[in-house]
């Protein structure tokens, strides 16, 4: 009987919800891609502690991020991979009456290797399908021609 009451008490103790004091901290992490820029004056002097403003492609007028360069004129940011933000990210750096702005092509949060294609030079999916079908028929027709039986 004693053993029964022991196990019963144990089960009740485990099953009963307890009040948890949510006053702790939690850190999560994930790997991401970052872009580092370095700003310099014409004479090569780094623009240290210069004002930085980052504009995302989805909103040309509103700053996406603001910050300051370090002592070497460097600034690092991690562009998001939103579909709306595929394209040129513009980075503006200002200090002491001098400023510059540069565009960085980014796709899916990473530096685009090639320049973004102009919309006028790209093919739509339908055009690609037609071209593929035409090529396929070319190959098929050629194969059939050479496989015909001689009479």
């Amino acid at each position: 009987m004693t053993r029964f009451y022991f196990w019963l008490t144990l089960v009740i103790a485990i099953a009963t919800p307890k009040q948890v004091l949510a006053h702790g901290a939690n850190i999560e992490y994930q790997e991401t891609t970052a872009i580092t820029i370095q700003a310099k004056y014409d004479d090569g002097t780094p623009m240290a502690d210069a004002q930085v403003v980052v504009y995302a492609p989805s909103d040309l007028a509103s700053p996406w991020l603001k910050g300051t360069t370090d002592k070497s004129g460097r600034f690092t940011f991690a562009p998001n991979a939103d579909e709306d933000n595929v394209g040129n990210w513009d980075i503006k750096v200002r200090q002491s009456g001098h400023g510059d702005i540069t565009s960085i092509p980014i796709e899916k949060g990473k530096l685009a290797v090639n320049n973004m294609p102009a919309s006028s030079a790209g093919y739509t999916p339908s055009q690609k399908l037609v071209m593929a079908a035409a090529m396929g028929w070319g190959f098929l027709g050629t194969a059939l021609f050479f496989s015909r039986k001689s009479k």
Partner: protein
Amino acid sequence: MNRVSTLFCGITLSSVILTSVIQRNEKKTIAAPIKEGNLAFVVNGEDFVRQGFVSKDNWEVNFDHVYINVDDTVAYSTSSSFEPQKGDTKESIDHQDKVSFLDTPKTADLAEGGTDAEPILVSKVNATEGFYNALSWKLITADSQSAISGKTMVLIGKAVKDGETVNFNLGFNNPTEYVCGEFIGDERQGVVAADTPGTVEATFHFDHIFGDANTPIEDALNQDALGFQPIAELASNGTVDLDDMDLASQLSAQNYQKLTEAIAGLGHVGEGHCVISND
């Protein structure tokens, strides 16, 4: 063979049909209405002109008028930022759209409106919605109808130092074309929407001529600037009324070179730099 012929006809017919559908869809896209808004071109001498300043050699300079004669001003919309390099011309700007502002040259006074005035509106036009992030403009010799006939720029004002006052009227005839990237300032400019007008600005940095006492003397700005003292030394009865031909003969060669380089380097877009086109 009949099967092959049938297959051939089927693929050919499909290709023709798909192509015509694509062209119809493309035509539908092209036919979409183009939205327009207003784009203004302003010129700005900044607080240096509106409120005066102290030159690198401690002359307190104030302007009554700063006339410039502008022409052939074009704003461009580029897909990525245009960063002008030495040797670039306006043909170097790879643009998707552009808009011109002036049919005829216009003389503007950068000192107009007082100490708290806004930049001076030169022209406002309709422009396709978009982001206009490059600019080119010319300073050309004013015609006889202008207040500064025969000149590209005239500075009128007075300078005071240690109780001495020098009234100046300096005229320059230095036709120049500036090719510039995006305006650099507190806010981004040049965004045009149907309900939101945009602005492009030609900014003139007159501290490049006279220097700035609020900037360290060893700073490149002050090292490259002429200052006001060399001009004050040319005064007759407290007045300097000279054009660039006079200044060329009366200033030392080194000082005249500083002056001409500073005049040429006046053009900016906010804090953004321009290059001078040799075309």
